[in-house]
């Protein structure tokens, strides 16, 4: 195959990838968009096999076959609730592959490289390894193998900056080193990058996970793009760039949803449990309506309220995922609708542990997606809502975000559930959420608390409606 033909075909595939993403802008066309992307990837593999004359290489064929089998088994076995950690692990694999490519090219094929290729190798090695170790820590936290609480190391600022400098410095040194020393320096660069990824993610706690996982997604793309620079492959460069952009958009979106900057999340500044709203503090900017005592009732007492409601909104949070209550939530929705109540869902952008987490869980139990309202639309409609049912959500409905200056969630856009006539909170307990800020919603006069396992309280709610 001539170089020109290859480049033209590569460009066609890049346009195909972009078209596939374009189709992702609506749930109706998204399945087709994903298939288009998969077909383009298959075509890209075939194109590469043909261009480099690789057909018939047994090692390559075996490696591809093993990858396909493992990938298919993993993808078909995984449960939807495990999706955050699967996404994290897959990010890491992509990063690892890019880093390996960079190392092998740098050590084995150095003679054919110019300075641009070499520097790209060093960079791909660093970014890929950081992505791998960061993703593994994130996956471990999401799966509960690693402590979810932020781990704050002594002198972490100095350690982080030092490791970052070491990663970049050693990466570049590996790229420029004479062939005799390249292997040792590359190994050192890999170690420094792995440590940096570890230190960076180990101090990110559960609620900041959506931002972290989006950022790692972006880096896995960047690693592929830079590896593409190293071996002058247009498909790697373009597709890697697209993935980098996608991760960046998700990261921005998550940061907006939490009203915090990326630097704050990565430095762990906002994840430290805040001392600001200490109990009994006279200067505490209390929410104006947060004066009454908490009202805890039995689910059965909610029957009249729910049966009288014409419009209900359910606000799910990470607690719903933890309690595995989505099926009960769907049953509650069906029951309410059967007595003539209109039910919608209000989805906060950072509810859960990854972008769009709640939407996937609710889609799995066959809640139609028209019912999944975004933040602004949901907030506009609360005033016309008879009852709001909060299921395992805390920070995203915490009114302190509007009034309590100096707390980690101050300024974060929240779902203003108290604008509805009545609020029922089905949370495990009244402990502060991930941000560590006490929730005045629990003491609001409109609020009734149904504490305990959400799958039980929500099921009890549904039962009392149909009585």
């Amino acid at each position, binding site marked *: 195959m001539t170089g020109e033909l290859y480049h033209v075909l590569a460009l066609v595939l890049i346009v195909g990838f972009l078209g596939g993403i374009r189709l992702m802008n609506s749930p109706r066309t998204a399945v087709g968009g994903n298939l288009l992307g*998969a077909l383009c990837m298959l075509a890209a593999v075939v194109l590469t096999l043909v261009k480099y004359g690789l057909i018939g*290489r047994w090692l*390559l064929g075996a490696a591809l076959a093993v990858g396909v089998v493992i*990938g298919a088994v993993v993808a078909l076995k995984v449960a939807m609730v495990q999706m955050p950690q699967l996404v994290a692990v897959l990010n890491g*694999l992509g990063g690892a*592959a890019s880093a390996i490519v960079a190392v092998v090219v740098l050590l*084995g094929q150095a003679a054919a490289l110019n300075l641009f290729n070499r520097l790209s190798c060093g960079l791909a090695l660093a970014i890929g390894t950081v992505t791998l170790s960061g993703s593994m820590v994130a996956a471990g936290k999401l799966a509960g193998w690693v402590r979810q609480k932020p781990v704050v190391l002594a002198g972490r600022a100095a350690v982080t900056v030092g490791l970052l400098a070491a990663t970049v410095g050693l990466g570049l040194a590996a790229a420029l080193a004479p062939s005799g020393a390249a292997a040792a320096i590359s190994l050192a660069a890999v170690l420094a990058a792995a440590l940096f990824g570890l230190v960076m993610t180990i101090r990110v706690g559960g609620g900041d996970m959506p931002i972290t996982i989006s950022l790692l997604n972006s880096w896995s793309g960047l690693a592929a793009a830079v590896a593409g620079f190293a071996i002058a492959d247009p498909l790697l460069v373009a597709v890697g760039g697209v993935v980098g952009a996608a991760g960046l958009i998700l990261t921005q979106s998550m940061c907006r949803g939490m009203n915090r900057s990326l630097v704050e999340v990565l430095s762990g500044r906002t994840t430290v449990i805040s001392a600001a709203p200490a109990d009994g503090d006279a200067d505490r900017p209390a929410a104006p309506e947060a004066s009454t005592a908490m009202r805890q009732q039995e689910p059965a007492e909610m029957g009249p309220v729910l049966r009288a409601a014409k419009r209900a909104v359910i606000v799910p949070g990470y607690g719903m995922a933890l309690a595995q209550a989505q099926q009960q939530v769907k049953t509650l929705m069906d029951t309410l609708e059967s007595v003539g109540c209109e039910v919608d869902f209000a989805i906060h952008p950072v509810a859960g542990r990854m972008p769009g987490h709640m939407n996937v869980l609710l889609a799995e139990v066959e809640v139609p997606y*028209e019912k999944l309202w975004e933040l602004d639309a949901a907030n506009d409609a609360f005033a016309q809502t008879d009852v709001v049912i909060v299921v395992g959500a805390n920070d995203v409905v915490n009114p302190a975000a509007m009034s309590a200056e100096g707390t980690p969630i101050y300024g974060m856009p929240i779902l203003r559930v108290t604008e509805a006539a009545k609020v029922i909170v089905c949370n495990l307990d009244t402990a502060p959420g991930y941000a560590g800020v006490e929730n005045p919603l629990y003491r609001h006069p409109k609020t009734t608390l149904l504490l305990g396992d959400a799958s039980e309280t929500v099921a009890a709610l549904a039962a009392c409606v149909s009585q």
Partner: protein
Amino acid sequence: MTEVYLVILFLAATAAGYRNIRAVPTLLHTPLMSGMNALSGVTVLGAMVTTAASVATGSAVLAAAAVVLATVNVVAGFLVTHRMLRMFRSPGAGARRRGPT
């Protein structure tokens, strides 16, 4: 020359991707992420070329391991995205509209 072409391609693809991806609703952000995840496995192409070009056995084995990892990334990424997207059904399609978003 090649370097300039690659850098321009990178910038153009990133910009075009940025524009297209901004249009994806938050509803689909998880499948978007897993789909992008699959695309980041494009590095499998680099791993394939590197495997074939490796002379030393050690390099070839290492590069083949990269092929496995990237292939898992691609296949699992596209498949879970497919599984998720198929769940986004709309029994009442057309009956009621989503709120303004």
